[in-house]
């Protein structure tokens, strides 16, 4: 608790640097990552993230110090090189893009690890902390680093702001952008460069191994909550920043902890919550909607059965027994029992000693379902020329779907017919 207050009150200037740095890093990777995600280039982001490691190591070997500027340049060069190699392989051979990405990723990362191991065994005193590039160490961010990475991050956000509409059309319809005369190649190059930059900026906090997660996961999580690009960008940034700051807090309190894994755990939790609970797109809501639909169909079918029974013996006010209902229509008994109870609760049925009886509201609802069923059968036979003995199954589904407006149109189109293709009367109000 003490650590919590100390960290989030931002009184310690070191902590202020760490928090500010983390916010900039995660925000810039979330923003760029959103466009990478929409361009369906998530894998490319992963490859770049791994490919910056040899660059970092080479820069260190050359400079023999951890000068952040040099490290940035080194990371940038190999990150970029990896993209050129991927592009060259896919263009000039039969190797598919995903294979090329896998290839490049493992080769570059392998070389990076090799160099890193060498450096660590070289006994160079300046190398301590270089391994934090693997899994990230936000708490080790020095004011110097934050300044360098911060400038990059701000630059990157500014470019995205300027080219917002261009990146949008590039992700949605590249060919059309080309027709309009937009410099598609240059724009793609810019976006790729930004991706590399975002990775370079982010690795200090998150590390190369998990950097791709910081690029793509915030966007993927945000996509569940919205259909608007501007809101998606804001959400992705928020998710990224929350996980970044929390992660660096944890690595601040437990100094042995690398930041990256924690940041990724937290962003993954956010993504998981989005996956399950986001309105409309989340699994939870979809399942619930399906269940509601199934329930509605069952209820309408039960009321329809009461109406059909009433039609058969010209009495709608009579109580119907359990067996009568099951003979008229093949219900699953357990479902029928639940449905009857529910309809009673909702006031569409009443319980009597001999069974259940339709209320006025239940009668109207049952009648409407029967009416829609028969209107639809008629529509299919008249307009789509489907044989009358083939229309029943279809109508069984459609009767539950038709809205009152469609019902009105259907009636007018058919001219309020009296009977359906099987000569059953169509019940109007």
């Amino acid at each position, binding site marked *: 608790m003490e650590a919590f207050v100390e960290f989030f009150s931002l009184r310690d200037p070191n902590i202020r640097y760490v928090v500010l740095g983390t916010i900039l890093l995660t925000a810039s990777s979330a923003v760029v990552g959103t466009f990478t995600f929409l361009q369906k280039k998530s894998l490319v982001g992963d490859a770049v993230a791994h490919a910056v490691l040899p660059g970092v190591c080479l820069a260190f070997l050359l400079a023999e110090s951890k000068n952040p500027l040099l490290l940035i340049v080194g990371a940038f060069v190999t990150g970029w090189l990896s993209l050129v190699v991927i592009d060259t392989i896919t263009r000039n051979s039969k190797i598919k893009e995903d294979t090329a990405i896998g290839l490049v990723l493992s080769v570059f990362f392998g070389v990076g690890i090799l160099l890193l191991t060498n450096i660590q065994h070289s006994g160079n005193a300046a190398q301590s902390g270089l391994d934090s590039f693997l899994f990230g160490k936000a708490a080790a961010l020095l004011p110097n680093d934050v300044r360098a990475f911060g400038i990059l991050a701000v630059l990157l956000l500014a470019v995205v702001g300027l080219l917002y509409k261009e990146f949008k059309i590039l992700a*949605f*319809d590249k060919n*059309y952008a080309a*027709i309009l005369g937009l410099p598609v190649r240059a724009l793609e190059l810019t976006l790729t460069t930004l991706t590399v930059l975002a990775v370079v900026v982010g690795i200090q906090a998150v590390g190369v191994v998990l950097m791709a997660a910081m690029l793509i996961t915030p966007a993927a999580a945000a996509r569940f909550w919205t259909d608007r690009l501007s809101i998606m960008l804001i959400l992705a940034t928020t998710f990224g920043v929350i996980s970044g700051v929390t992660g660096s807090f944890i690595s601040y309190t437990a100094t042995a902890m690398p930041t990256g894994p924690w940041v990724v755990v937290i962003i993954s939790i956010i993504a998981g919550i989005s996956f399950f609970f986001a309105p409309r797109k989340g699994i939870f809501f979809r399942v619930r909607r399906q269940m509601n639909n199934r329930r509605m169909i069952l209820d309408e079918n039960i009321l329809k059965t009461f109406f059909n029974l009433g039609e058969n013996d010209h009495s709608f006010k009579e109580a119907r027994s359990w067996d009568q209902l099951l003979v008229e229509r093949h219900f699953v008994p357990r479902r029928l029992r639940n449905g009857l109870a529910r309809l009673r609760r909702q006031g569409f049925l009443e319980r009597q000693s001999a069974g259940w009886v339709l209320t006025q509201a239940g009668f109207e609802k049952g009648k409407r379902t029967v009416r829609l069923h028969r209107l639809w059968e008629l529509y299919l036979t008249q307009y789509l020329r489907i044989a009358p003995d083939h229309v029943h199954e279809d109508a069984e589904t459609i009767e539950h779907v038709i809205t009152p407006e469609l019902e009105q149109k259907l009636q007018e189109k058919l001219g309020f017919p009296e009977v359906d293709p099987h000569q059953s009367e169509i019940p109007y109000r």
Partner: protein
Amino acid sequence: MIKHVENPVLEVHDLTVSYARKPVLWDIDLTLPQGSLVGIVGPNGAGKSTLIKSILDLVPASSGYSKLFGDDLANVRRRVAYMPQRESVDWDFPASVLDVVLMGRYGKLGLFKRPRKADREVAHECLRKVGMEAFAKRQISQLSGGQQQRVFLARALAQEADLYFMDEPFAGVDAATEKAIIGLLQEMAEQNKTVVVVHHDLQSVVQYFNWVLLLNMRLVASGPTEQVFTNELLQEAYGGKLTLLTEVSELVQKGQFAAREKQGYRG
């Protein structure tokens, strides 16, 4: 039967187009008069979309060239609009109907600039023309196929061009909408704009278009509808498979020959 015109709005000269060195269009040579409503007709896989894409530089030509308004495409982009097939994009994209139609204005806007009020008004007007003004704020992922088609049409209209290329604008739209759209296109042709439409319904060709291209890997015919839309020529375009041409295409691909002497072959 290939009829050429003076001062064409579009000239395609001896164009051959290949995918991975396999030619799908052979020696296309045609000219189109300004102010015509042109139907490109031919069986599936005839290369109708490819012809448009090649004219618009989306697919490189193995040989030959196209001139629009007597000029290279790069110099006249502002005057050329395109409506791709609906399936060419992923509609599960976070954008509204208005956003997409506004993209038609990006060419005129140039880099960095945001759409202005005037652009919004043009976009709304184009949506009104295609009967989609009520959907301006709707997210595109929630549209039906026919509605997506109309959004793409509105986007092409928003380009305010003189020469329009439309790839199957009637695919998946209902009859009433189709009638409204063709009325719109005819009106544009009357204002001396040229509209080139890939069309798959032979029944309505005579009624819709005053110029027809019959295409099946090669150009079977190009000319005024009444002269081109004959049984004989249709037979030639649709009937007897061009087995010989197909075979040669495959040979070319296997042998990795260039379809022609290298002339600006890219990729």
